[in-house]
């Protein structure tokens, strides 16, 4: 080691403390809106719009009950004539002089998000893995052009893409269908998936397959038994990225679905209660919707950089 007390690029303890303090402050501030969403989901509608905003409040699941049900306001006489409530949610709703009229659409929309998200992710990964392997291992004519073309499809604003898709789907009867949305999200996600997976495949030494093929494996067997197992982590990371994209997508869902296949993002902002947006219910919907992504992000943290830069930066 040199004569200096510390390595030239090693920061001093004071520098570290200083950096840590600033980062922690920033992290806390940046988390505030998310924490506020969660807190609001546990408030009563009155508490949620109180002035000044309430930090301490009695938590309730009213927002979640309102999220999953539709309710109608009734007269006190009618309320009195009802048999005693059977469940805690019945009781909660009745304490507001309302009765549950039925389930809301949130469950359906959430399920649509799940179906379309997983459906398109599966298809993307299936097609993307094959294409990425081919781009990684074979001399494909016009390879660079094809790869760039695949990437450039992401430069169109989604609203612009939606114009012809709308007309095409109308002709084919694919508007507002799960299949239509799965195909669309697959097409959009393929660019990301091919680029990312090609990067992961490039990192697997060719020698492995070649050795296997010398041992008598066919190309397909080598792909299946040698390359795929090696690429599992990369494929999983790519899959999660595709899933998050499909999960979060808004513009296509807004313009190409109206009910049957509508996903949660265009739906959550339209949750209304009695007079105005029902903020606790909106927050409850947002919480349930954002939570899976939070978990996935934490799982993904090692590959995050690669995913967001289309594999351009690999750390």
């Amino acid at each position, binding site marked *: 080691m040199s004569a200096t007390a510390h390595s030239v690029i090693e920061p001093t303890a004071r520098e570290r403390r200083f950096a840590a303090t600033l980062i922690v402050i920033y992290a806390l501030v940046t988390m505030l809106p998310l924490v506020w969403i969660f807190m609001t989901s546990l408030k009563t509608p009155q508490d949620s719009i109180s002035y000044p905003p309430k930090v301490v409040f009695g938590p309730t699941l009213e927002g979640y009950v309102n999220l999953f049900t539709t309710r*109608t*306001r009734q007269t006190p006489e009618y309320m009195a004539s009802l048999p005693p409530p059977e469940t805690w949610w019945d009781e909660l709703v009745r304490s507001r002089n309302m009765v549950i009229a039925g389930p809301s659409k949130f469950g359906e929309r959430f399920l649509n998000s799940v179906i379309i998200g997983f459906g398109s992710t599966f298809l993307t990964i299936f097609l993307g893995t094959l294409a990425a392997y081919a781009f990684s291992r074979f001399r494909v004519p016009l390879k660079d052009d094809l790869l760039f073309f695949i990437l450039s499809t992401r430069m169109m604003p989604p609203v612009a893409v939606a114009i012809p898709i709308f007309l095409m789907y*109308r002709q084919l009867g694919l508007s507002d269908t799960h299949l239509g949305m799965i195909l669309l999200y697959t097409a959009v996600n393929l660019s990301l998936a091919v680029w990312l997976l090609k990067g992961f495949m490039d990192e697997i030494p060719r020698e492995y397959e070649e050795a296997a093929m010398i041992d008598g494996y066919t190309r397909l067997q080598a792909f299946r038994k040698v390359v795929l197992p090696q690429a599992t982590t990369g494929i999983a990371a790519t899959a999660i990225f595709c899933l998050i994209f499909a999960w979060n997508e808004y513009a296509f869902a807004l313009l190409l679905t*109206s009910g049957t296949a509508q996903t949660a993002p265009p739906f959550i902002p*339209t949750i*209304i209660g009695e*007079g*105005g*947006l029902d903020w606790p219910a909106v927050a409850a919907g947002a919480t349930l919707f954002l939570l899976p992504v939070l978990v996935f992000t934490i799982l993904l943290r090692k590959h995050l950089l690669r995913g967001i830069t289309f594999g351009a930066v690999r750390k």
Partner: protein
Amino acid sequence: MRRMGLALLGSTALIGGLGSAAEAEELTLCWAAWDPANALVELSKDFTAETGVDMKFEFVPWPNFADRMLNELNSGGQLCDLMIGDSQWIGGGAENGHYVKLNDFFEAEGISMDDFAPATVYAYSTWPKGTPNYYALPAMGDANAWFYRRDWFERPELQEEFQAQYGRELAPPGTQLELLDIAEFFQGREIDGKTVYGAAIFTERGSEGITMGATGALYAWGFKYENEPGSYDMEGAVNSPEAVEALEFYKTLYECCTPPGYTDSYMQESLDAFKSGQVAMAMNWFAFFPGLYKDPVVGGDKIGFFVNPGQNVEASTLGGQGISVISYSDKQDLALDYIKWFAQPEVQQKWWSLGGYSCHNDVLNDPSFPDSQPFAADFLEAMGNVQDFWQEPTYAELLLAMQKRLHDYIVADQGTAQEALDLLIVDWTETFEDDGKL
């Protein structure tokens, strides 16, 4: 072997059962998510009880309603069998083949449009306007009107102060300018320890809010869309001195007398402001009045209602919808059955009692109607002088232009009222030229 046979039998029965469950008839009705929609759900239970047809509903909040539903219609979607579409959609619905023409059906079932209030038939059912070509049955009469805090208006100290300041009684306004006085009087006042504001009005940008609000003033000043009906000759009508004055009035009202941050508000925000005790007066559609009157906090004795005040003329902005059958539905016969059921006088009577605004003459002409609700007489009065926006097939384009010009002027404070209306004529002319009408 025997067990297997039994299992097979069981599963066939199961499949059979599933099959018949799936065949249970079902209709989907699309409408906006608001108070009357809940009433319709309640009312439709009778239809299900009578016919065994299950009713499903797709209700979309107003700010997204037109956008979502017109998109659905234009994509030829099969989400809705029945649609309670906004009055202005009738032109597009008819010309683009979204709605089924109902003349033959009305004739076969003996449903006469003479049984419905003429203003509603004209506005909700006919295309081209005023011709006996029907594409909808009037379902929900509506107009924009006002409500106020009766309990505040009746406070002696406020009455005294108002009398001293304006030289007249503190009471529901007779003209738009009186309304402004009252709004100014309440703006920023302390009532029961809370700061309150003058009036909640429509200023929403995204769908139709600010147009629906501002036309309340425009019509009252005598605004006309054309010099001659059907001529598309707008110069001098749309930008008449009266129209300019009315628009300036609406901007004054917005700037002086609305709650803070009231820049993008429509029905829900107006209800919010009123129900939370922030405003003395608010504009909104009649559709909400039954719910407001029932409100545990501000309803009952505390609320009063009044028709949109006139200025040069008496006029109200039309709301309301007719119910139509969607031509892309494969259950049109069933959908027609629903309309047939809905058109019956008894059903219409119940519709009104549940909080829907029937357009049926048997209901409206009933001598007991004006007293059946505190706002019923106002409703009749308003429906007598309603005016509606363009109902052209290009209505969305016309509306968006007006939304932009009005919001730019009133809320974003750009340009003058004269400029806004002049630009509006330019926009509209372009639309009509594109459409081959000019």
